C-alpha cells in the first residue's frame, strides 16, 4: 500500500517536472511577450527530433544535445519575434487585439513548423534507448532517464528563477512584464527584451524536447499534446506567473499520476476537466492576482 502511494507520488513528480519545464517557457512567452504561443509544442518536437537525429546518426549524447538544441530553438524564437511578432505588435491597436492576433499567428507557425518537420522526418514514430536502467527508490522502480529529466527540470527551474530575480536582464524582463511602456521609458530596450523572452521560452521548449526524447516516443505531430498540457499548467498556475507554472506543473503531474493509477485512459480527460473547472471558477489560477 505504502509502496503504491510512493510509486504514484514519485511517478507524479517525475511527470510534473517535465510539465513544469514545458509550462515555464510558455509562461514566459505569455507573461512578458503577451503571446499565447500555441506553437510551443512544435519547439518541443523540434528539440526531440533533432536529438533523435543527433543520437542515431551522429551518435551525440542526448545530454550534449541540450547544449545544441537549446541555442537553436532560442535563435529560432528570437528571429520569429524580431520579424513576425514585432510587426504584429506595431500594427495592433491594443494589447487585447495583439493577444488574439498573435494566437492566430501562432497557429500559423504551428502549421508551418509541424509540416516542415513532417516533410523532413516523415510521420513515423521514433525513439531510442538511453539511460534506461531501473533505479530503486524506496521499493519502487523508475527509469534513470526519467530521474535525469526531473533533475534537469528542477535545476533549470531554479536557475531560471535566480536569473530572473538576480540578473540585470532578469530585472528588465520582470519590469517589461509589469508595464512595458514604463519599462521602456526607464531605458529598457523593450523590443529586445520581448524577443529575448520569446526566444528563452522557445529554448526551454527545445530543452524539454531533448529530455522528452529520452523517455517517450517522438514524432512530427507530438507537439499539440504538449502545448495543450503547457496551456493547462499555465492557466493552473496563473497566466504569466513563472513560479505558478513551476508549482502548477507538479500539481498537474501528481493529479495525472493518481488518475492514471485508477483509470489510465482518463488522465488527459482529467486534465481538461480540471482546466475547464478552473477557467470557470478561478481563471487567474493558483498564483494569479
Amino acid at each position, binding site marked *: 500500500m505504502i509502496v503504491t502511494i510512493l510509486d504514484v507520488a514519485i511517478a507524479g513528480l517525475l511527470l510534473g517536472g517535465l510539465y513544469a519545464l514545458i509550462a515555464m517557457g510558455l509562461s514566459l512567452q505569455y507573461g512578458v511577450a503577451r503571446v499565447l504561443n500555441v506553437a510551443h509544442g512544435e519547439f518541443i518536437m523540434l528539440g526531440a527530433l533533432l536529438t533523435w537525429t543527433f543520437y542515431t546518426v551522429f551518435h551525440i549524447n542526448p545530454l550534449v544535445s541540450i547544449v545544441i538544441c537549446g541555442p537553436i530553438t532560442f535563435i529560432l524564437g528570437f528571429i520569429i519575434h524580431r520579424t*513576425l511578432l514585432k510587426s504584429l505588435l506595431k500594427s495592433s491597436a491594443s494589447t487585447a487585439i495583439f493577444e*488574439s*492576433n498573435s494566437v492566430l499567428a501562432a497557429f500559423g507557425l504551428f502549421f*508551418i513548423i509541424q509540416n516542415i518537420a513532417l*516533410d523532413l522526418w516523415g510521420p513515423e514514430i521514433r525513439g531510442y534507448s538511453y539511460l534506461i536502467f531501473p533505479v530503486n527508490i524506496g521499493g519502487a522502480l523508475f527509469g534513470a532517464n526519467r530521474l535525469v529529466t526531473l533533475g534537469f527540470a528542477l535545476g533549470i527551474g531554479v536557475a531560471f528563477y535566480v536569473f530572473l530575480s538576480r540578473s540585470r536582464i532578469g530585472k528588465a524582463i520582470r519590469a517589461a512584464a509589469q508595464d512595458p511602456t514604463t519599462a521602456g521609458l526607464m531605458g529598457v530596450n523593450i523590443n529586445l527584451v520581448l524577443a529575448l523572452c520569446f526566444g528563452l521560452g522557445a529554448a526551454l521548449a527545445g530543452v524539454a524536447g531533448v529530455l522528452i526524447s529520452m523517455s517517450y516516443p517522438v514524432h512530427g505531430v507530438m507537439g499539440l499534446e504538449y502545448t495543450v498540457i503547457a496551456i493547462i499548467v499555465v492557466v493552473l498556475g496563473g497566466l504569466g506567473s513563472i513560479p505558478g507554472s513551476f508549482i502548477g506543473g507538479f500539481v498537474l503531474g501528481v493529479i495525472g499520476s493518481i488518475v492514471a493509477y485508477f483509470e489510465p485512459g482518463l488522465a488527459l480527460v482529467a486534465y481538461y476537466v480540471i482546466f475547464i473547472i478552473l477557467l470557470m471558477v478561478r481563471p487567474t489560477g493558483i498564483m494569479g492576482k
Partner: protein
Amino acid sequence: MQNLIIVINVLSLVYSGWFIDWLLAPERKRRLLITGILLLILVILAALPFYGSAYSVILVASIIMYVVLTVSWTIFSGSTGYISLAPAAFFGVGIYTSAILGKEFPLFTIVLFGGLTSFCLATLVGALTLRLKGIYFTIFTFGLVLLIYQALLWYEIKFTGTRGRFVVVIDNETIYYVMLAIFVVLLIIAYFIRRSKYGLALRSIGEYEEAAAHMGINVTALKITVFAISAFFMGTAGAIMATKWTYIDPGIAFNPLFSFMPVLMAIFGGTGQFYGPILGAAIFAYLEETLLTRFPYYYMLIFGIILIVAILYMPQGLVGLIQKIQRRISRSERAHT
C-alpha cells in the same frame, strides 16, 4: 467543361453572399431584382446534379460544408469578436449524433437532431463560459474540443470495445441537396439576424461590451443565443457529412482542423461582409480538394503561411483588399474627369 461547371457553382455561392450584402446595405434599391437573382443562383446550384459530373457534385458539397461552417462561425465570432475554436466540437457532435441515430431514423430527423444536440451543447457551454473574455474564451473553446475527443475515445474503447462506428451510407446527390438546404436556411437566418436590432446589438458587443450592456442590451442572453444558433448549423453540417464518410472515430469527428479551418477561412476572406467568409471558404476548400491528396504537408504549410500573411497584411481580409482597390480605382476615375 467540368472545371467550368465547378467554377460557375463556386461563383454562384460567392455571389449569393455578395447579393445578400447588397440587400443589407441601407441605400440600395431594386430589392425585387436582387431577390430574383438570388433565386436564379439557387436554381443554378440546385440543378447541378443534372448537368454536372458525379465528382463536381461531391466537390461542391464539400465546399458548401466549409462555407456553412465558416459563415456560421462568422455570425457569432465575426461580429462579437469572441474567437471561438469550438467549431470542431459542434461539428463532431453532429457527426456522432448521425452515427448513433443513423440506423433508426429518417435523414431529415438525423440532421435536425444533429443540429439540436449541438444547439443544446452550445447553450450549456455558452452559459458557463461567455463570461470569459478574449484569450480565455479562445483557450476554453479549444479545450472543449479536446475534452470531448478524449472522453469519447475513452468511452468507446472502454464500453463499446471498438474505436470507431459505421454510418449509414447515403447517395451523394441527397447529401448535396441537404447541404444546399442547410446553406440556404443559414443564409436566410444570418440575413435576418444581421438586419434585425440583434445584429446591431451583436456588433455593439464587439465594439464595446460594457457600453452595450449599459445601453440595455441583454448581453449574456444574446451572446448565448447566437452562439447556439451558429452551433446548430455546424451540427447539421456534421450530421450530413458523417453519411459521406461512412466510417468515423473520435479522431476523425473531433479533428481540431475543423476548428482552425473556419477561423482561417473567415479571417482570410474578411468577416465584415457576407461574401468574405464564403469567398475564403470556397478558395480554401477548393485548394484542399486539389492539393491535400497530392501534397499533404505542403498544403498545410501553405495554409500556415497564408494565415500569417493574412493576419499581418490583410486585417480586413480579401474583402478589405478588394474594397481598397475599388476605392483607389474610383478615386483615379474621379481624378481623370
